[in-house]
């Protein structure tokens, strides 16, 4: 009987301890839980003189209160048309949407495990046309380089992080997507293993941003496909330019071939659920000799 009681007490102590330790561990895990960000891209299509409003919620799933600063900046694509962006001062770019966007509040204190809403409004001026771009940033401090030494040397950096909500604002009834493909080159590949490189230039001749999805097929005289591939995704503002490239890795038998290139200009709008295309299709004749030697290639038409 006594043994049973002792065993019972031991079991209770063990289980309560387990609960306590497990509880601590779960708390610690929640404290370390990393916040998430959704709605990192907003594409707006509205007419001149119209105002579009929305709300963004900022959530703090950590156990610490977070101070977050909100502000707008402009952005542009970095050289190379890969879609990589650089952010610059508001109103410094010719296609800045910053003057059209307002939001409130500008600074928020999000309590532990709490949420805060931010209201934004995009006012498109009467007479506006084309497309504008901006980024709304949410910035918070991670750590501060503080320990000041009385002697010796110390170098420290404050660390801040920010996430962007990119705005693409298109003025309904005025935007059009169009592009040109030029300067086709088919030449031996520089890559290890040989093959053929296909390069061409792209120019955005519309008045809004374009993100492309491109592909090619190479057909022989009988219409059989002997090679196919995809081009790099290309991103360009209105009047922007870039290069499309792809590689045929296979060894192509000597002969005359038809090269068909298709470039969909509507990748961005498709991702936003705003429709597909337009699509550019161009063809050229390519004559290939022994060992993938390019004898000649014609103009795109």
């Amino acid at each position, binding site marked *: *009987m006594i043994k049973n*009681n002792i*065993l*019972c007490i031991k079991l*209770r102590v063990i*289980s309560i301890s*387990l609960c306590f330790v*497990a509880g601590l*561990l*779960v708390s*610690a*895990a929640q404290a*370390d*839980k*990393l*916040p*998430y*960000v*959704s*709605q990192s*891209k907003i594409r*707006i*299509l509205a007419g001149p003189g*119209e105002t579009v409003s*929305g*709300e*963004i*919620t*900022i*959530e703090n799933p*950590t156990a610490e209160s977070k101070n977050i600063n909100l502000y707008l900046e402009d952005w542009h694509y970095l050289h190379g048309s*890969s879609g*990589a*962006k650089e952010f610059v001062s508001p109103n410094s770019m010719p296609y800045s949407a910053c003057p059209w966007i307002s939001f409130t509040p500008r600074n928020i204190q999000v309590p532990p495990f709490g949420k805060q*809403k931010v209201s934004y409004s995009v006012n498109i001026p009467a007479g506006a046309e084309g497309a504008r771009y901006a*980024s709304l940033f*949410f910035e*918070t401090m*991670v*750590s501060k*380089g503080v*320990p*000041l030494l009385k*002697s*010796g*040397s*110390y*170098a*420290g*950096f*404050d*660390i*801040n*992080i920010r*996430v962007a909500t990119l705005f693409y604002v298109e003025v309904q009834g005025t935007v059009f997507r169009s592009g040109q493909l030029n300067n086709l080159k088919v030449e031996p590949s520089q890559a290890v293993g040989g093959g053929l490189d296909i390069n061409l230039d792209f120019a955005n001749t519309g008045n809004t941003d374009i993100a492309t999805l491109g592909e090619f097929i190479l057909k022989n005289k009988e219409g059989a496909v002997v090679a196919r591939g995809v081009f790099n*995704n290309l*991103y360009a503002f209105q009047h922007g330019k870039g290069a499309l490239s792809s590689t045929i890795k296979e060894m192509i038998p000597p002969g005359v071939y038809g090269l068909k290139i298709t470039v969909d200009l509507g990748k961005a709008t498709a*991702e*936003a659920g*705003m429709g597909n295309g337009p699509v550019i299709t161009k063809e050229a004749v390519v004559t290939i000799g022994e060992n993938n030697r390019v004898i000649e290639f014609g103009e795109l038409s």
Partner: protein
Amino acid sequence: MTMLKAYRINIPILILAAVMVFSRCSFAADTLPDDNAAPEASAVAIEEVSPAAAGIADSNSNKSAQAEHVFELSVIAQNQPSSVNFVNFNPGDSPQSNEVLVEIKSNLGRQYQVLQNVTSRLANIDGQRIPLKNITAQTLPLSGTKGFLKIPDKTPLKRGHVLLYISDLEGSSDKFKINYELTAPENLIPGNYLSGILYTLSEI
């Protein structure tokens, strides 16, 4: 009989404890870096509340019925205290290193980038400076890093934006390290030198 009573009381508690311990294991596997304990982490969350507002077609609305969208950045300095800092360095010393773990979680399925921006000169209160060229940055892969690191070699710091990383085309969650290395200048005046680094996460 006494034993039975004891089990009646303790079995639910033991099950609860086991569930909580298991939960901790899952959280830890999801949130902590592989290589080191995380001294500190912080980030910001944004959630669109009304994506279907009139005139708005947002890129996430088609997926609203699916899992919650995730797009988060965490930056964890591996130093103690958790910051990028160099202490007690002198001319002629071996370079000092600091590592920062950068982790991005995303389920958007779209490519993204991480930028670094050194926001000010590295200066003390008297305006004396340590040239930024005395600090190099280098992006380093971790096992399983999927994206493209843009500073594969040690490169002197400079003010302004520098592209650190571009994800794979699928926008997979990923992580990598940045190694900062300071070499004390020959004409170093002892003091406390401060600057700032801003890391930016955005979609491509």
